[in-house]
């Protein structure tokens, strides 16, 4: 297992370098004009001054030169400065926004896990019943509904029409201290983000359980007269959970990607919100740093899942040893 961890971590720099290279290449071929984004379309900036602005920021340099300079600064631990963040250091901008995104993603992951497990088990336990049908239909509906639509719908229903929850931001703007996150403000964005992944998990749990229930050892247990509930919870579920763990790693990436839309809808001051701006304004240092941070999270998340998989499933452990 140590070998697996070392091998994966050794691969991490290679993955990050590839991601950075790809991000630079993509911004090069994108149609966005950083100078236009910088001065705005309807401002009186002469062609000469535009050229000077491009030069001051290095927008006019070939992409490989910018990449080389970025690598050089990175070697000194400097992620550069972000245009979108008013020229402030990228590291500071990410640090100040990271906690909002981590809380959002962490909370959504929790909802996905618990909700998916609960409703998946429920649907499997009562397979073929009306309850199973309701859970499945809601899952299909959820899969078909795009997150921006769900987000707007939730905003209008729960914060505007019903006035139960606040409509965006991490705290009330009037509050004297707005450094933390008000739980009431967290509810809607967290649930909407969770809904982007929830249906997959639920259906996965249900289907895996049904498969495991058909396996020999479960049939054997049933033949011994063990009750259906105990059968499901003690014999089928532990085995169904093993692949479930690996899915957590993969879907962490999906949840992180989902923050771009969810944070924009709810005015959530996290990393997803600024990712879009960084992309539209060709703020390469910020865009690359966020992409790298997300890549690290995904790699580590997958690694954690694989390690857990080995811990939990003796067959894999022995095969790897």
């Amino acid at each position, binding site marked *: 297992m140590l070998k697996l961890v070392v091998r994966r971590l050794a691969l991490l720099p290679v993955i990050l370098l590839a991601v950075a290279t790809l991000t630079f290449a993509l911004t090069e071929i994108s*149609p*966005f*004009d950083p100078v*236009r984004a*910088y*001065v*705005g*379309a*309807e*401002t*009186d*900036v*002469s*062609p*000469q*001054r*535009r050229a*000077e602005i491009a030069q*001051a*920021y290095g927008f006019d340099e070939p992409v490989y030169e910018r990449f080389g300079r970025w690598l050089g600064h990175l070697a000194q631990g400097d992620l550069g*400065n972000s*245009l*979108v963040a*008013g*020229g402030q250091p990228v590291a500071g901008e990410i640090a*100040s926004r990271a906690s*909002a995104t*981590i*809380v959002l993603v*962490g*909370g959504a*992951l*929790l909802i996905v*896990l618990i909700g998916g497990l609960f409703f998946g088990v429920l649907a499997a336990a009562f397979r073929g019943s009306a309850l199973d049908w309701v859970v499945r239909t809601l899952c299909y509906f959820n899969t078909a509904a795009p997150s921006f639509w769900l987000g707007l719908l939730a*905003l*209008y229903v729960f914060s505007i029409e019903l*006035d139960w929850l*606040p*409509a*965006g931001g991490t*705290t*009330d*703007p*009037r*509050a*004297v*201290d*707005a450094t933390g*996150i*008000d*739980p*009431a403000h*967290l509810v809607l964005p967290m649930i909407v983000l969770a809904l982007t992944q929830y249906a997959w998990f639920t259906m996965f749990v249900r289907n895996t359980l049904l498969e495991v229930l058909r396996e020999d050892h479960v049939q054997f247990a049933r033949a011994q007269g063990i009750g259906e509930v105990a059968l499901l919870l003690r014999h089928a579920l*532990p085995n169904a*959970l093993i692949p479930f763990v690996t899915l957590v790693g993969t879907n962490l990436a999906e949840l992180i990607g989902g923050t771009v839309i969810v944070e924009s809808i709810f*005015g959530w*001051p996290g990393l997803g919100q*600024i990712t879009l701006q960084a992309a*539209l304004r060709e703020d390469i240092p910020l865009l690359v740093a966020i992409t790298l941070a997300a890549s690290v999270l995904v790699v580590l998340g997958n690694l954690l899942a694989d390690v*857990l998989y080995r811990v939990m499933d003796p067959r894999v452990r022995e095969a790897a040893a």
Partner: protein
Amino acid sequence: MSRVRFGAVAAAVLAIGVGAAGCGGSSDKDTSAAAGTLVIALPSQPDNLNPIYGDSVYEGTQKAFNGLLRYAHDLSPAPDLASALPKRSADGRTVTVTLRDDVTFSDGTPFSAKDVVFTYEAILDPKTASPLATLLDSVDAVKAVDDTTVQFVLNRPDPAFEDKLQLGIVPEHLLAGKDLKTASFNRKPVGTGPYVVTEFQPGGRIVEEANPSYFRGAPKIKRIVLTAVEDENARVALLEKGTIDAAGIVPKLAPRVRRNKNYNVYEVRTADARVAALPNRDPVLRDPALRRALSYGVDREKIVQSALAGVGEPAYGPIMKGHWAYSAAAERPYDPAKAGSLLDAAGWTRSGDATREKGAKKLSFLLMYPANDSVRKDIALAFSSQMEKIGVDVRLQGLSFDVIQTRQDKGATEFGYGVPYDPDLELYTLFASKFASEPGDVADTAFTNYPRTRNDAIDAALDAERSTLDRGARKQHFAELQKALADDASWLWLVRLRHIVVISKRVQGVDPQVEPHAHGFSRGTSWNIEDWTLDAT
């Protein structure tokens, strides 16, 4: 066994989630400070609060800085950090400004002439990359004569220079020798203004508190919070919920807010026009006769009614009605019959209600507008249905400016322009031949002179109006300019907006100036915010 381990994982995830959420919590402990707070919603958070990086001279939401001059309510220049109006030399090329000697920055450092010199030199320095540099292209040098006297040496007698003395002055002692592009000052600014920025939450809110040592006396409203609400419907919803106290809204949502008794709805008159640029290289629009005909075919009153819910006024040219430089003679009033006969004469003939044709070619062109702007979309739709009536097919496309600029010569584009100040500030770069780039130029994508107009009459009028300080003569040259623009018709003016600003009835003292082209809660409304008062709830 495996179940236990999974439980441990879930507990760990739970701890991350709850632990992080636990550090928050709503804070209603100090309700008095919250009650004395005015919350203003902007469409987006400004990313940089340094006035050197203001995207134009017209934005003025934040009040942490002062210029040498400011606009009085009637938009005449008035002293701000200057102790009197500036003096010009006989040739108009030396401008001397005397400064107040009783002003300090909010960190306690006295303000002096060296701060003014630093600010103007920083904007002109190409390394600063300030978007305001073009505005100061008439400045050759700026010198501190003594602590309270500054002299500007100009390369021409710039008649609009007083307007350029309104730029916010930054403190030299905090910025000298620094790379301004990356200065932490950009988000923690220190100025002389009535408000001091005390909090900048990236992506969240900006908090400004009253400056107790402001040289005109501390403002009455003690705390202003600027929060970004991008969605236009959400801004109205937040007003109705009482989460925010003030916001700019779009016309079609105004009736809904008017029904709410807690708010005053201001229709602020503006110079902010919506205008279609008709590119001189488009295969259809290149013909001036055709362009003139289109102008006669637009029922601008009707566009105001249908697209702006009646809140706006027709626009016939670059200078708004009522401005000293406005010339009524250049107006082309709605005359569909004349539009039709001009189109017939240009060879675009029509049978019945069909689209006009010249040979096998249909009279059809593309109109692009920024897709995220619902007001521009409504105006474009109204315009297109007017054009249909005179047999012209206008295809509409909502795009981003990044894409629009790659199609500069391939169709018309709806822009927003207009200042109620000196027209030279904006019109020269919009219309002069020398600001028309050639396709393939390094700066091919520049938005100055977007239709690539090259017209001698326009150039002559522009050069004449900026060569003299005599207002009577300039009025005459601006009249020539408006006539020449109407003849050339590369720009098709449609309407001027009124900005609809909603402010809580608790706020007293709101008295908006005529506003420039702006987005959200702009300078003309907030110009005297330091004099506003806020009633207790």
